[in-house]
């Protein structure tokens, strides 16, 4: 006998293997995949998802308001970007930059509104968060440094990148808090601390 099973035994085994239940992955897995894919530029955003529309409309209104205010009094913008030394010189650049700054500030508010980091964290996630924070800090340093000699176009690129990184950071931190909220430790289940 090569395997030691009769035909009936093997049939029974195959039937039982086939009847084993499948396991769905936790919801957070898709969010992590999407975050990574977006960070790597693998995904194209949908044209018009409803939530984006609402959010986009709100952002557009905010940007419009800011742009009007800035255009009326170009020498004294009504907001101050995170890097204090930043100034703008033409109205088109103001529109684009104002939008990015508003978005960036909103993301910072979102980040601050999240609960503190959980005590037990995934090492990989934590490393990614630290890397994102370092990259954002590096961008802020560039934008704040009067000696950096950035053109308006360069500044827009930096601000765009800052917004992109902030979105990733907020997403990761949100996923982290969600994971902590539903971890076995919080629910008194076996496997606590595995994360």
């Amino acid at each position, binding site marked *: 006998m*090569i395997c030691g099973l009769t035909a009936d035994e093997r049939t029974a085994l195959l039937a039982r293997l086939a*009847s*084993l239940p499948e396991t769905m992955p936790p919801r957070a897995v898709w969010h992590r995949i999407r975050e990574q894919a977006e960070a790597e530029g693998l995904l194209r955003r949908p044209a018009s998802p409803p939530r984006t529309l609402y959010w986009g409309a709100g952002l557009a209104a905010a940007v419009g308001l800011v742009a009007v205010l800035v255009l009326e009094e170009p020498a004294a913008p009504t907001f101050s970007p995170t890097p204090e030394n930043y100034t703008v010189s033409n109205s088109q650049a103001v529109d684009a930059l104002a939008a990015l700054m508003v978005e960036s500030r909103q993301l910072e508010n979102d980040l601050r509104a999240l609960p503190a980091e959980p005590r037990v964290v995934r090492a990989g996630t934590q490393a990614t968060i630290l890397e994102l924070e370092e990259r954002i800090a590096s961008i802020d340093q560039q934008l704040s440094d009067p000696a950096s000699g950035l053109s308006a176009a360069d500044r827009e690129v930096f601000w765009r990148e800052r917004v992109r990184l902030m979105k990733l950071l907020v997403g990761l931190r949100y996923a982290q808090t969600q994971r902590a909220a539903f971890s076995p430790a919080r629910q008194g289940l076996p496997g606590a601390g595995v994360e």
Partner: protein
Amino acid sequence: MAKFADINLDEAVVRRAAGGDVRAHEIIYRAYSTPVYTLCLRFTKAPAHAEDLTQETFIEVMRSIAGFRGESALGSWIRRIAVTKALMFLRSAWTARSQSFTDDWDDVTPGDNLSHGISRHPDDAMDLDAALASLPDVARTVVWLHDVEGFTHKEIAAYMGKTESFSKSQLSRAYQRLKPLLGQADDAPEASGAVLRTY
């Protein structure tokens, strides 16, 4: 159990995914994430590892789907990626422990599976789950690939960088461990008695 081959998606979804459409990728994920995660969980036994491997699998799908020509079914293609990722993970774990594919039976004390309270009666799934979990990683992987996913020994050997004999040997040893579970067949009076010599 829904298998990879049982799932069919519209070709348009694949085309959209090839263009990076996030909705199309989400559809693909919803369709295949359960079999992928189940496979990874069977291989690794650890939910955290299975989650990471599921993530790696679908990221690889996103990276490579533009090159997917439809020569095989989408499910088979995704399964191949998942199997490759999971085997790479197991290889790296073995490497870290300075072990090879061949010696992990030494990690398992004979009769381990029988100490899990395997009975011939209720909850066969749980019994089989416990018995599978008690098998060495390689043997469990071979059983899953051969008996659930339908891989041939030749294919398994190629994936593992081993010979067909190695795959057959692993399956045979695994069967010996699982045999006590198959009591109902034993109980059947004068079962066919045919002994399988090839798979």
